[in-house]
């Protein structure tokens, strides 16, 4: 049994056809799988290897190299905090302690209910709005304790 619905299989198939060479769609397909499953599992890798007609090692190589992909499921909401130099100067270390306290987990962990995972990230390209957060693929600038509380309240 496939780990994907027929509709999802169609979406993945489309990534093999979008670019001049099928492999050029591989990273986008992995992004898609990460979004659906909140991780890339062994079964997912097997499936993509067959779909893209490449050795499984090619899929594993990409899935383990890039920080966007995880082997274990992230929380339903993925929170990243920038630890780049400009964000550090703007107070990102304090925001790290604030997030750890509010979530009750350490950096790199997921809450027991699977709702939130929290990680620090390298530069998010928002040095003018530090400390920068990325919440479910959306950049948020000027993190404060208040903003973090507000964002957490909005996430279901």
């Amino acid at each position, binding site marked *: 049994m496939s780990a994907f619905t027929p509709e999802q299989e169609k979406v993945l198939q489309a990534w093999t056809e979008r670019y001049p060479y099928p492999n050029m769609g591989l*990273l986008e397909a992995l992004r898609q799988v990460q979004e659906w499953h909140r991780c890339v599992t062994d079964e997912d890798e097997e499936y993509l290897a067959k779909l893209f007609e490449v050795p499984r090692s090619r899929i594993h190589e990409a899935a383990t190299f890039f920080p*966007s992909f995880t082997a274990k499921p992230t929380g339903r909401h993925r929170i990243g905090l920038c630890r780049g130099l400009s964000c550090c*100067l703007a107070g990102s270390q304090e925001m790290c302690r604030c997030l750890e306290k509010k979530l009750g987990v350490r950096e790199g962990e997921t809450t027991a209910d699977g709702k939130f995972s929290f990680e620090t990230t*390298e*530069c998010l390209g928002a*040095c*003018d709005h530090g400390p920068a957060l990325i919440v479910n693929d*959306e950049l948020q600038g000027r993190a404060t304790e208040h903003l973090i509380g507000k964002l957490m309240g909005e996430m279901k």
Partner: protein
Amino acid sequence: MITLLTEHFNEPKLHELETYRRLGGYEGLKKALVMGREPLMAEMDKSNLRGLGGAGFGAAMKWRTVTPEAKDPGPRYVVVNCDESEPGCFKDRVLVTRSPHQLIEGLLIAAYAIDARRAFIFIRGEYEVQHGILRQALDDARAAGFIGKSLFDSGFSCDIDLMRGAGAYISGLDTALLETMEGKKAWPRQPPPFPTASGLMGRPTLVHNVETLSMVPHIVLQGGVWFARLGTAKSGGTVLFSVSGHVERPGVYEFPMGAPLKDIIAAAGGVKAGKKLKAVIPGGVSTPVLTAEELDTPMDFEGPRAKGSFLGAGGVIVLDESADMVMVAHNIERFLAHESCGQCTPCRQGSFWHERILERGLNGGGTAEDIATLERAGENITGKVICALGDTVGVVTRALMKKFPQDFKDRFPQRHG
């Protein structure tokens, strides 16, 4: 003072095709298609446009080295590098957000120059909003006939597609970018061959930064000589600076090439809260630090180089008197260690040990011998690795140690007994 890329940034709807057209958008593309390839290349030659992603390679020279169709029949590509990820740099994000069509127009002109019928914009995955803006801009430009078949009835056709990265800084290095696009881990290639001979899937490929291509319509419309005269002898035109750190108004500021560093800091409102300036990182964290006594440095590709640093991608990070330079060095080396792709041993091991040693200093366990180790080990990395990331490991730390020795003596004291 003249600005090019940011000239119309006060227009709230500049990102929409209608506004861009009203302000003369896509007229550069039309002019380029009418004038023909060789006259276009002649203007590029005269412009002194340099690659603004950090390397500063002459743009016209790069275009001319793309293997011509006659020598290598088959597709050729243009790839836009919008994988901006160096701490301190955010101008590409602002350019794409505010003026996506300016980039698309420049991209199409470059594609015409090298006769590429397909082009790709590779954007970092974290720029999800900008990905959406570009997708909309591409759809609108396609619907209006600026992308697609026989543009302006010239017979030249080109389509543009988007692709997203997955969080690796090294993907922003041209050859690693190509590997990423091919669905592989982002390991830089060892040139030669350069991408202009063997790039995406082995085909001749022109890889350019967002800012570089955004300059191209202005060169076509105003002429290469005019553009060159805006800048200095070897660096033509203007350049964007992303200013962050301890300043009043962080943001993107456009200046003619060669503007003194102090003017750029002044434009950002000066040092925050009236504090004293300690140092400035001029071009993103991979560029060695300049001191408060070096604010007259002209910011073109030559100016910072004369002081042992680089213009880089114009990521100016201002550090006030409160900055601990060991913390700064640790933050930067930790970044490089995390982002090292692991291919070359000197970079992989060197960045790891720089991070460890600097961390020891921060945690109170540093000794004077650590400084000697950092100096000795650091000199065995640069020039012994494939890519520019590896070349950077240790360089920033050595510059900080040289210019701010007291910060390091405090953290790495002589210990007796």
